[in-house]
C-alpha cells in the first residue's frame, strides 16, 4: 500500500508530562501495594500481625494488595508505556490534554477510593473486582476518557499503518471495557453496598471469565505491546519477526477469552464448560511461546549487550518469566494437575511468577529506560540497577519455589489416606504447621523484591533530579486524510480469514458435541480441513500477493471490529448458556423450592461474610474427590449456590472448605458456642490456628434499616422472597437472632443481661449464616437445576 504524498511537514511536541505522572504513580502506589502484600504474607505466619485491628486484618488487606498491584502498579505503568509509545508510533501528540489528565486523576482517585474502602469492609468480594459500585463508575469514566483519547489519536495519526504494539493496546481497551462492565453489573442497595446481578454458577462463570481475562488483557496484552515497542528500542534493533507478531497477536486475542473456566475445574460447573476451558488453555501455550521467542530472538546477535545493560537484563528476564508462567498456566489447566494444585499456594506461586517476574521486571526495565529519556539525562547508576536486578531475581525465585513446594505439599497432605481408608491428616493446623517454613521463605522473597523496588525508586529519583523534564519532539509528515485504497473495510473484515475462523469454530463445536459420534467425526475432519486450508493460504500469502493484514492494519475501525468479534465469540459461548440455564429452579417432590432463600438474618450474616472477605481463605465448593468427601461431605451441587449474590466458591483454602459447615452428615458440624468462641479467638478452640480474630463482630451491629431493602433488591434479582418476608424482615431477623442468643446464654457464652444488646450484633448473623451452609434439600435430577 502506498502512502499518498505528504501535504506538509509539521513539528510536534509529545505530551510526556502524562508519562511522567503515570510513572510516578506506578512506582509510589506500587510500593504501597507491595508492602501491603508483605504484611499479608507475614500474617500467614503470625496472625498477631494485624495488631488486632479490623482494617489491617488479612481478609481485608489481601484484596487491597491485589487491587493495588493490578490497578496501581501495573495499571499506571501500562498507561505510562502506552502514552509514550502510542504518540510516537502514530506520530501525533495525544489529541486532548484534558482527557489525558482526566484519565490520570480519575484513575488515581479510584486507587485512593480503594484504599479507603476495601480495608473497611466495603467490597463486592469478587476477586480483582472487589471495588464497590461507586468506584466501578469511576473506573468506567477513567477508562472511557482513555479510550476516547486513544481512538481519537488513531483518527488523527500521521502514520498510515498501525504497529503491533498498537494492536495490543486496542485489544486491551476494548476487552477490558466489556469484561469490567459485564462482571460488575450490580444493583446498589445503599451508598456502600450492592448485589451483583449474577448469582451462583452463573456468577462464577462471569467472574472467572473476567478474572482470567483481566490477567490476559490487563496484565498481559498491554505489556506485550510495551515489549514490542520498548524491547526493540532498548536493543536498538527491530523485532525478530513481524510476521510472527501478527500470528502471536491474533492467536492470543482469540484464544485467551475462552480459557476462564480453568479456574473452576471439578466444581459444580457444567462439564462442557470445564472441558472447553481446559482445551483453550492448552492451546494458549503455543501463541504465548511464540511471543516469548519473538521477544527473546529480537536480541539475536546482541546478547553481549544484555550483560552490560540493566534495561535489557530486566526485559530478558521479564519475557522469560512470561514464558514460564504461560507454560505453567496451561499445565495447571489439565484437570488432574488442577485437582492437586487448585486451592493451594501453588496458584499463588504461579500468579507471582507472572506478577513479579513478568509485570514487575518489565515495569522496572521500562522505567530504567524511560526516566532518563523523560528528564533528558543518563541513568544515575547502572550498578544500582544491576543490584536491583539480582536482589529482585533471588526474591522472585525464593517466592515462587517456596509456594510450589508449600502448595504441592498441602495438596498432597489434604488427600493422604491411612491404610484403613481414612484421612491421614484430620487436623488442619497440623498441615499448616508443615508448610510454615515455606511461608517464612515466601515473606523473605517478597521482602527482597521490595528492597529491589526501593533501590529503583532511589535510582530513578536521583536520575530525575539530575536532569529536567523534557518533552520529546519530532518532525512529522502530515498524513493526507483520504479514503484507504483497495476493497472496502467491510469486505476486509468479512474476508477469507474471518470466514475460515468461523468455519473452524463450527467444526470445533461439532467435534466436541459428544452426543452424536458421527457429527464428531465429521467435525474433526472438517476442522483438520480448515486448518490445512489456513496453512496453505498463509503460505501463499507470503508471495506478496495477498495483503489482507497490511490492509486491515491501516484501518483502525476494521481492526477494532475484528478484535471485538474475536473477543465476543468466546465471551458469548461461555456466558450465554449459563445465563439461560441458571434460572431453572429445582423443586422438591412436595413442590417446594429445593433451595430456600436465606432468611433475613442469614442474608445479613452472609453480607458480613462477604464484607469481611472470608473467601480469601475459605472456599465453599467441595470437589467430587474421596478425600474431600471425607473431610467436607457431599460434593457441592450447582443449585446450592443459586441464590448467592455474589457466589463465594473461593479460590484458596488457607482454612478448610465451609460449604457444609452447617450441615455435616445431617447435623450442624459445631454448636453455636463453638462458632462464637472460634470467631472471637480461633485459638481458644483450635490451637495453632492462623485464622485472625474477629472479636469486633461480637460488638458491632448490623444496620437493620437496610434489611428489608436488601430482601427487596434480592427479589428484584430473581430470588423468590414473598412480600410478607420483605415487610416482616426485621421482626423475623430479631426472632431468629434471639433463638441463637438464647442458646448462647444457655451455653454460658453470653450473660443473660446482655441479651437485648447481642441480638443485633454481626456475629449472631454470621453464625446463622454459617449454620445454614449445606442445609439445602437434595433434589431429583429430573426436576432440573442439576448438571
Amino acid at each position, binding site marked *: *500500500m502506498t502512502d499518498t504524498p505528504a501535504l506538509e511537514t509539521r513539528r510536534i511536541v509529545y505530551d510526556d508530562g502524562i508519562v511522567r505522572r503515570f510513572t510516578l504513580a506506578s512506582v509510589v502506589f506500587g510500593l504501597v501495594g507491595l508492602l501491603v502484600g508483605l504484611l499479608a504474607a507475614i500474617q500467614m505466619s503470625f496472625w498477631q500481625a494485624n495488631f488486632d485491628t479490623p482494617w489491617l486484618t488479612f481478609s481485608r488487606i489481601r484484596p487491597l494488595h491485589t487491587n493495588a498491584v493490578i490497578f496501581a502498579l501495573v495499571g499506571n505503568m501500562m498507561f505510562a508505556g502506552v502514552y509514550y*509509545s502510542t504518540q*510516537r*508510533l502514530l506520530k501525533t501528540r495525544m489529541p486532548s490534554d484534558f482527557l489525558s489528565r482526566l484519565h490520570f486523576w480519575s484513575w488515581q482517585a479510584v486507587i485512593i477510593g480503594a484504599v479507603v474502602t476495601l480495608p473497611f469492609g466495603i467490597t463486592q468480594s469478587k476477586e480483582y473486582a472487589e471495588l464497590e459500585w461507586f468506584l466501578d463508575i469511576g473506573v468506567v469514566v477513567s477508562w472511557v476518557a482513555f479510550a476516547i483519547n486513544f481512538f481519537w489519536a488513531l483518527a488523527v495519526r500521521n*502514520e498510515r*499503518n498501525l*504497529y*503491533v*504494539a498498537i494492536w495490543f493496546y486496542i485489544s486491551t481497551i476494548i476487552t477490558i471495557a466489556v469484561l469490567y462492565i459485564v462482571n460488575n453489573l450490580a444493583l446498589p442497595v445503599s451508598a456502600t453496598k450492592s448485589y451483583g446481578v449474577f448469582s451462583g454458577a452463573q456468577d462464577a462463570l462471569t467472574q472467572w471469565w473476567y478474572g482470567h481475562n483481566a490477567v490476559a488483557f490487563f496484565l498481559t496484552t498491554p505489556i506485550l505491546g510495551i515489549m*514490542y*515497542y*520498548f524491547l*526493540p*528500542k532498548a536493543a*536498538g*534493533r*527491530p*523485532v525478530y*519477526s*513481524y*510476521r*510472527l507478531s501478527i*500470528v502471536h497477536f491474533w*492467536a492470543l486475542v482469540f484464544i485467551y477469552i475462552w480459557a476462564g473456566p480453568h479456574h473452576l475445574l471439578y466444581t459444580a460447573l457444567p462439564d462442557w464448560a470445564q*472441558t472447553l476451558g481446559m*482445551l483453550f488453555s*492448552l*492451546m494458549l501455550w*503455543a*501463541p504465548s511461546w*511464540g511471543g516469548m*521467542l519473538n521477544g527473546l530472538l529480537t536480541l539475536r546477535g546482541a546478547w553481549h549487550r544484555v550483560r552490560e545493560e540493566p534495561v535489557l537484563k530486566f526485559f530478558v528476564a521479564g519475557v522469560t518469566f512470561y514464558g514460564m508462567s504461560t507454560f505453567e498456566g496451561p499445565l495447571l489447566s489439565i484437570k488432574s494437575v488442577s485437582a492437586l494444585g487448585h486451592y493451594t499456594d501453588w496458584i499463588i506461586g504461579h500468579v507471582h511468577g507472572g506478577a513479579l517476574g513478568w509485570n514487575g521486571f518489565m515495569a522496572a526495565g521500562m522505567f530504567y529506560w524511560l526516566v532518563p529519556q523523560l528528564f533528558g539525562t543518563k541513568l544515575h547508576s547502572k550498578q544500582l540497577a544491576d543490584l536491583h536486578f539480582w536482589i529482585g531475581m533471588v526474591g522472585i525465585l525464593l517466592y515462587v519455589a517456596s509456594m510450589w513446594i508449600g502448595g504441592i505439599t498441602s495438596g498432597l497432605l489434604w488427600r493422604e489416606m491411612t491404610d484403613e481408608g481414612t484421612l491421614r491428616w484430620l487436623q488442619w493446623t497440623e498441615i499448616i504447621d508443615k508448610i510454615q517454613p515455606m511461608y517464612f521463605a515466601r515473606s523473605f522473597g517478597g521482602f527482597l523484591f521490595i528492597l529491589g523496588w526501593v533501590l529503583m525508586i532511589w535510582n530513578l529519583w536521583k536520575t530525575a533530579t539530575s536532569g529536567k523534564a523534557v518533552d*520529546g519532539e*519530532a518532525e512529522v509528515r502530515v498524513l493526507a486524510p483520504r479514503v484507504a485504497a483497495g476493497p472496502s473495510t467491510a469486505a476486509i473484515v468479512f474476508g477469507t480469514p474471518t470466514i475460515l475462523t468461523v468455519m473452524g469454530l463450527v467444526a*470445533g463445536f461439532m*467435534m*466436541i458435541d*459428544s452426543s452424536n*459420534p458421527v457429527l*464428531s*467425526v465429521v*467435525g*474433526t475432519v472438517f*476442522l*483438520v480441513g480448515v*486448518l490445512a486450508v*489456513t*496453512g496453505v493460504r*498463509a*503460505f501463499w500469502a*507470503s508471495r*506478496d500477493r495477498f*495483503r489482507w493484514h*497490511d490492509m486491515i*492494519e491501516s484501518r483502525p475501525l476494521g481492526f477494532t471490529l475484528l478484535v471485538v468479534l474475536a473477543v465476543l465469540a468466546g465471551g458469548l459461548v461461555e456466558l450465554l448458556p449459563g445465563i439461560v440455564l441458571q434460572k431453572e429452579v429445582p423443586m422438591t417432590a412436595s413442590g417446594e423450592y429445593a433451595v430456600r432463600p436465606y432468611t433475613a438474618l442469614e442474608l445479613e450474616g452472609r453480607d458480613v461474610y462477604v464484607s469481611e472477605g472470608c473467601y480469601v481463605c475459605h472456599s465453599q465448593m467441595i470437589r467430587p474427590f474421596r478425600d474431600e468427601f471425607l473431610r467436607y461431605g457431599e460434593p457441592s451441587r450447582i443449585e446450592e449456590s443459586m441464590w448467592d449474590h455474589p457466589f463465594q466458591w473461593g479460590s484458596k483454602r488457607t482454612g478448610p472448605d465451609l460449604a457444609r459447615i452447617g450441615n455435616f452428615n445431617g447435623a450442624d458440624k459445631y454448636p453455636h458456642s463453638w462458632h462464637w468462641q472460634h470467631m472471637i479467638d480461633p485459638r481458644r478452640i483450635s490451637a495453632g490456628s492462623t485464622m485472625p480474630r474477629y472479636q469486633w463482630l461480637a460488638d458491632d451491629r448490623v444496620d437493620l434499616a437496610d434489611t428489608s431493602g436488601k430482601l427487596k433488591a434480592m427479589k428484584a434479582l430473581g430470588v423468590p422472597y414473598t412480600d410478607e418476608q420483605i415487610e416482616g424482615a426485621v421482626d423475623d431477623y430479631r426472632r431468629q437472632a434471639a433463638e441463637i442468643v438464647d442458646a448462647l446464654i444457655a451455653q454460658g457464652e453470653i450473660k443473660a443481661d446482655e441479651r437485648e444488646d447481642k441480638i443485633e450484633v454481626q456475629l449472631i448473623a454470621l453464625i446463622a449464616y454459617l449454620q445454614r451452609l449445606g442445609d439445602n434439600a437434595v433434589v431429583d435430577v429430573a426436576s432440573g437445576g442439576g448438571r
Partner: protein
Amino acid sequence: MFRALFEDGVLLDLPVVSMLAFFALFAGVLVWTASRRRRPHYDRMSQLPLED
C-alpha cells in the same frame, strides 16, 4: 466396525487429534515466520519503534 470404533471411546481422542493438528499448524507457522524471505512492508513496519 464403526460401532466398535465408537464404543471403544476412540472418539474421546478427537479433541486430542485436533489439538495435535493445531500444534502442528502452529509449529509450521513458527518455522515459516522464521524462514520466509523478508517483505519490505514488514521491514518498514518493524523499524517504526526505532524511528524517533
